[in-house]
């Protein structure tokens, strides 16, 4: 086996040194009746070239080189090549959690820079890179709000990513955390009257997403006023991090739960991504996850360490702020490099291109379907309602090797034939025009003939 660095003679010599007759002696503690006396039924050992071929085949079966209009919590942005050059360095890739600070300063300083940049971008005072993804970060933020306020309930907007809401429901279920869902209005934003009614004296926090699942930017200030008036905290989830380049961050929030995937992390069919929690200094001791702090060594030299560990499971066990052990360092490093590349000016220009592409696409789609929620500003996603089932539209688009917008029937049946479309800087005008033509064709077909039966099957 090519990963194993021992010759048969080495193994013999080692067994002899130990005083064992054979390797079986070392497995004697395992009762004989349970030992596996056959080969595992897994594929035979493969050569590297065979492994590469096998996965190339899988890659070809997986929409290789397709353009996409999908967003909805996972965004296709261009990834500058130096991200992979740098994260492929073994010193980053193959290091452990930086408990031993003297030989982990690279990882520690990188996380410190990440924390600093996230603070700059979100307007918060402290941040970490220790959550699995945006969905679990939102759930952990809600739990944190309960610890801070001593209250138990959460009011969550229906315009938050449906899968984030499902995850919160799973986490909340056994913690005595009642959830109230707050509807959205015709402009796609949180219904403020309903929100006001949904908050009780036991509401620990209001949880919203902005830009929300429909791409609409929420009126964060108004929502914050309502939450704070009732003594509840405001948690804002940000799923599309690139929006921070041009959209005012939710500075009125008490906790921001973020998905940093857009910052240079590949889509990879849904993970691994980068969950972030950012908050105010006063709440830092209730934060879950790892934090890096600056300090000095015995000679007064600047250095970095994992800090405030008394919140964590390896010290506090069942009294910890969370069971989390991960610190999503490698993915945070991708995001750190991405933020460094684009920086103060580039991030704004990048976000502006996203805005322009989505604005153009929405305008074009608007000629042949109804663009919903047009009364409020949005970033790079928008919802189009059509006469035809969006699966049928997508079926035609797919023939051009383009994946259409996300049909919303599963999540929001009340919106009918609606789909969520996303444009980023990589979306071409040609792809937009192709998609719009297909939607237009659908409108004509629905008006004249019956829908072809087999297209739906193609697109699902």
């Amino acid at each position: 086996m090519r990963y194993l660095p021992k010759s048969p003679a080495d193994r013999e010599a080692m067994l002899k040194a130990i005083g064992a007759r054979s390797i079986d002696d070392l497995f004697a503690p395992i009762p004989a009746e349970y030992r596996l006396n056959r080969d595992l039924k897994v594929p035979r050992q493969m050569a590297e070239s065979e492994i590469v071929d096998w996965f190339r085949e899988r890659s070809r079966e997986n929409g290789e080189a397709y353009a996409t209009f999908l967003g909805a919590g996972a965004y296709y942005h261009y990834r500058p090549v130096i991200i992979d050059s740098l994260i492929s360095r073994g010193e980053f890739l193959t290091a452990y959690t930086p408990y031993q600070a003297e030989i982990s300063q690279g990882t520690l300083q990188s996380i410190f820079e990440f924390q600093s940049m996230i603070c700059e971008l979100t307007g918060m005072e402290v941040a970490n890179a220790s959550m699995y993804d945006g969905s679990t970060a939102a759930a952990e933020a809600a739990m944190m709000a309960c610890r801070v306020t001593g209250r138990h309930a959460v009011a969550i907007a229906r315009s938050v990513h449906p899968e984030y809401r499902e995850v919160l429901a799973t986490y909340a279920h056994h913690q005595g955390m009642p959830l109230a869902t707050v509807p959205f209005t015709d402009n796609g934003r949180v219904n403020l009257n309903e929100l006001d009614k949904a908050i009780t004296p036991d509401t620990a926090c209001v949880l919203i997403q902005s830009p929300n699942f429909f791409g609409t930017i929420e009126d964060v200030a108004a929502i914050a006023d309502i939450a704070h008036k009732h003594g509840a905290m405001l948690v804002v989830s940000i799923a599309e991090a690139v929006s921070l380049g041009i959209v005012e961050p939710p500075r009125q929030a008490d906790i921001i739960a973020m998905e940093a995937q857009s910052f240079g992390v590949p889509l990879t069919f849904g993970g691994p991504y980068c969950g972030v929690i950012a908050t105010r200094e006063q709440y830092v001791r209730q934060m879950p996850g790892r934090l890096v702090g600056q300090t000095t060594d015995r000679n007064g030299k600047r250095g970095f360490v994992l800090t405030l560990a008394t919140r964590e499971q390896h010290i506090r066990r069942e009294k910890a702020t969370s069971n989390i052990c991960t610190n999503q360092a490698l993915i945070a490093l991708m995001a750190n490099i991405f933020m460094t590349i684009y920086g103060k000016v580039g991030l704004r220009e990048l976000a502006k291109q996203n805005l322009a592409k989505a604005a153009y696409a929405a305008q074009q789609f608007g000629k042949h379907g109804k663009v919903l929620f047009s009364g409020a500003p949005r970033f790079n996603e928008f919802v189009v309602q059509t006469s035809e089932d969006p699966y049928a539209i997508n079926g035609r688009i797919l023939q051009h090797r383009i994946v259409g917008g996300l049909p919303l029937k599963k999540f929001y049946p009340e919106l009918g034939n609606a789909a969520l479309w996303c444009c980023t800087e990589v979306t071409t005008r040609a792809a937009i025009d192709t998609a719009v033509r297909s939607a237009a064709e659908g409108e004509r077909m629905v008006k004249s003939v019956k829908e072809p039966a087999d297209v739906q099957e193609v697109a699902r």
Partner: protein
Amino acid sequence: MKHVTRKATRHVNQNEGLIFEKSSPGKAAWKLPPLDVPEVDTAELLGSSERKDLGNMPEVSEIEIIRHFTRLSTWNYAIDLGMYPLGSCTMKYNPRVNEVVSRLDGLANGHPYQPEKVSQGALRILQTLSECLIEITGMDAITLQPAAGAHGELTGLLLVRAYHQSKGAPRKKILIPDSAHGTNPATAAMVGYAVENLKSNAQGMVDVAALASQMNEEVAALMLTNPNTLGIFEQEIHKIADIMHAKGGLLYMDGANMNALVGKVRPGDFGVDLMHLNLHKTFSTPHGGGGPGSGPVAIKKILEPFLPTPVVIAKPDGTLGFEYNRPQSVGRVRAFYGNFGMFVRALAYTLANGPDGLRQTTEDAVLNANYIRKGLEGVYDLPYATPTMHEVVFSDKVQAKKGVKTMDIAKRLIDYGFHPYTTAFPLIVPGALMIEPTESEPKEELDLFIEAMKSIAEEVEEDPQMVLAAPHTTRVSRLDETAAARKPVLRWKPA
């Protein structure tokens, strides 16, 4: 320094400030293509939601970024540099073909919501890995959704709860041995269970008599790490399982130490009802400085109705798809399907090994640990004489007499060119030195490690002050953690 190390030599590395300290207006590392759609008026589109300023975000060029992060990287220790004997963490070689295949276009750029018709490659990977892991663990079904080991524990206990609830009541308690990882009790608390401690016996194993007396209809499950954190296989495992099952409880196995079992014995065969795996340990996906992990949960048939949604199914037409309609499911534990990129790597590792390679890997891991144990016996105190598997736990009892603790020995090990072992864990061993070499170490590296540890033991006798002040060769000396926690500085701010 009196003792000279054969493994490491001091060498120059570069100083480097924070990236913010290199920033100046007008430098850039980015270039966007010209817009192929009309420019927009941002004020008109966004109104008061428009952001005007990005604060202190840096402005630097590409070469500066390359040098910045390359310089930082040289300040890290890594498996690629040498042995990383962190007990319980399983720091094994991370094969590079895994990195190549996980970056193939259709996999790296696959969107989680793309139609199933154009997701067959990803679905096949999910299915194939699931089949391999089910076979390796001897279980009946699996969910790949949990994003890390602790997340797997959470998922597992949600399954336990749903199972008992379906029988009438969720029960109240989880039994956890005193040698367990901190995530176990923290997880139990998150799922609304009380934690009851289970004492270990003199051999470092579960005290079966104590278990029998503590087990009752209030206990939902026992969370057991096997081999445990002392590296000891629970020899009475089937009795343990029987005691749990007789009172309707479940046996949960923390699979952190699965590296000691793969291809030799299967938890499903010795009575385990559910367990999580750490793909970043046993299945070689890189730790990357602490994450991402991946923590699939393998289960017996009785728990299948409760699995998180969605699950992968074969459809009548032979293609694969996701099934969402599972009324008894515990729900979702994460958006999308889990850390797919880690599944690709874990599967590539499994394919590179095959059945023979997986078995040899386990044998070598156990061989390496026992070789170290033999080499250091008599030099460091061995609190439990019970045979060990893939890791061995010593204590600093001998050295503590000179005022030198496990952390000091660990820090001195850095000067010898090694990453420290795990210190002060498990909690049942005061002053623990927990050593797990994994299968990835050649005999030469193990010999250097043993030599280094012996040399440090001598230093403790001759010059304890020198050991207490270690490390001496790193770019920073021991850092003031107390000051860091007392007045936390958690971000850079302009002077």
